[in-house]
């Protein structure tokens, strides 16, 4: 298992952002769904090794990120796209991706080729030499995805990766996800259920810091059938039904 999480918690003062999450994920595309404030981003930041857990056990790529050496080794094999990605306005798209390739300690000889490939994969080939300040929001998002995949990561963490992408780019991105998921663990945090349906082999739904559903997209769809839950698509209905059930259970408890 590339991701092995047991009873993971994270507190920010009195707020418990992640409350006893357990999760295992191997190769494939793993969708992390949930409403705003469910704890998806905090969970992803812990998996990205930038936020230490308050308690629980976290193993990534067979290593314990609590120790510096293993953490560094994980980071070499990690791709991460934060929810709010900043950028260096004076850098070109290629420089931005190259910069992170070097920070990920890729062998310098492989960097130029890897950068060109990553830029091509996200469809920014013709904008490689453009300064980031001149790119649109969607293009910046793609530059962010390029830096995340430049090192061919074994664990790829994407927080709202399709935000700002146009429909055509979103379709292409899902294809890219499916391809990456054949050899790596890709965890996609999103609130767009169609992304999950199109690209994910597994899905977990978080609410109030807990995982309230874990299964395949088809199983999530099945949870919504015949419940009369709100939603335009089967996945949305499953999503709504699971959330409603979890919240009513929490209220009873």
């Amino acid at each position, binding site marked *: 298992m590339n991701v092995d999480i047991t009873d993971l918690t994270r507190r920010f003062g009195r707020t418990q952002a992640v409350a006893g999450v357990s999760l295992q994920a191997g190769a494939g595309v793993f969708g992390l769904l949930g409403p705003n404030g469910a704890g998806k981003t905090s969970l992803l930041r812990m998996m990205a090794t930038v936020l230490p857990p308050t308690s629980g056990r976290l193993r990534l790529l067979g290593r314990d990120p609590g120790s510096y050496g293993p953490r560094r080794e994980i980071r070499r094999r990690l791709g991460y796209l934060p929810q*709010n990605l900043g950028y260096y306005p004076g850098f070109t798209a290629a420089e931005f991706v190259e910069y992170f390739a070097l920070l990920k300690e890729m062998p310098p000889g492989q960097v130029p080729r890897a950068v060109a490939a990553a830029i091509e994969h996200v469809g920014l080939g013709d904008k490689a030499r453009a300064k980031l300040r001149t790119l649109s929001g969607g293009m910046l998002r793609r530059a962010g995805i390029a830096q995340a995949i430049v090192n061919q990561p074994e664990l790829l963490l994407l927080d709202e990766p399709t935000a700002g992408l146009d429909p055509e780019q979103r379709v*292409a991105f899902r294809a890219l996800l499916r391809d990456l998921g054949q050899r790596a663990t890709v965890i996609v945090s999103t609130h767009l259920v169609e992304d999950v349906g199109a690209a994910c082999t597994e899905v977990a739904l978080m609410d109030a810091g807990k995982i309230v559903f874990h299964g395949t997209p088809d199983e999530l769809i099945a949870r919504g059938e015949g419940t009369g839950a709100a939603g335009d698509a089967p996945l949305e209905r499953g999503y709504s039904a699971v959330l409603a059930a979890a919240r009513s259970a929490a209220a009873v408890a």
Partner: protein
Amino acid sequence: MTAATAAPVRHRTPRATSAIPLTAARLLRTELRRNAMPWILPLIAALFWFDSYRPSTRTAPLYVLRTFWNMGQGHTIIDIGPFVAGVAAWMGSRDGRRGLADLVTATARPRWAAQLATWAATAIWAVAAYLVFVGVMFAWYAHQGVGGTPPWWWVAVGATAVTAFSAAGFAVGAYWPSRFAAPVAAFAGFLAMAMSSQTGFSHISGWALILPTNSNGNFQADSGIFYPWLPDLPVARIMFLAGIAVAALGLTGLPARAGGPWLRRAAAVVTLAGVASAAIAVGLASTARLSAHGMVIPALHDAASDAPVTYTPACGRAAGVPVCLNPAYRRWLPDVNGALAPVLAEVAGLPGTPARATQVAAAYSSGEVGAGQVITLGGHPPVLRMSLGQLDMPGPCGFCDEPVATKQFADQIRLGFAQAFVGAGNGSGSPGQQAVQAALLRGAGIPFAAQPKLMATTKNGPGPPPGPATGPVYAAARRLATLPAAARHAWLAAHLAALRAGRLTLKELP
């Protein structure tokens, strides 16, 4: 976006240690290319021209005087340092300001290493700009025929100061990733330099000598002309500033996200080493004492630095007497010859008349006060020794109200000569000596009425300022001056020994 049908080869080979410098070099290249420092360089260049170069050209064309303003008083540092601190803070706060802290932290390369690359690029731009600005200024000085040698040690101090500003500013930005970090760092840098300058005005010795804009240092009258620039104080200041730079950079490696435990321990050691270096430098500066050639720090001093600079003098003649100056003063040789000619003619043929006149190094007792005797006469055969470094030479003189006129300079030389010739030394001499001195000056073209003012402007000995050209001294001087030249000459020849011994009274004058 396309599916990765032709994905690059996976690279799961162990990292070779030889790849680390190459990675660092590539990071540095990117940081150099996209650094914010070049954007502010035109502003710094304009300020440098206005505040460092332009005022310096109002001083005489000698490196020691030209650079007293911009290097000694540290205007080059004041013009550049605060801006560098501001830009460095801007760069140091970049990841936090731009919302990239998480992304950078999630990479394998220690954050401290990445930050050092960003800082290094900023510092390289800043120091390179400083060196280019100073280099252009010195090249222009050389084109203008400025005499002496450039104060390279003080250039090194300035470059280290710029480095220290960049490091300190960067640390401010790294710890406070806000858009306000840059202006605050710049203002703090300016304030520090202003306080350093003010402290320098009042503290001419002790620990305050370590401050980079304290002008009380090696900027003695003949530094780099007769003697090399002493490196003692610059070395101490470089230690101090480098210590600050190292400590500031070490501080950026202390936070938990900066790197692993070993790296953070190393950062702590680096910080302590920087603090120790700065503290040792302050201690060394407090032991500094002023020698005849500049500031000496016993623990750093190399006696070889005291060896005079060899040179081929520039020579001419005044009233038949050879006059030789240091080549740095070559442009003033006609002025010196013109000043000496009338007084040498007055005493020609008398015993003790100089066989030659030569320039000697000025010996200062302190930074700006207590000059010694400008002109002395002695030896066998008698040699007139002039320490012109104590005088304002004809032309622009920097801190004077107006340029020094040739006549003003000539009068100072003639007065110094007359004082030396009658044996008055550094003081006002005996009444007899004063009277003969006044008569000699009168013969050299300085009216009695103008002499008290001349002596007041050049007075450097003890006692009250000279009064008006009246009284028994000037009465005796008038009597001597009205004698025919041959008679005056004969009287002087007969009484010169007694006169120089101070035994001649006014009544004994003709």
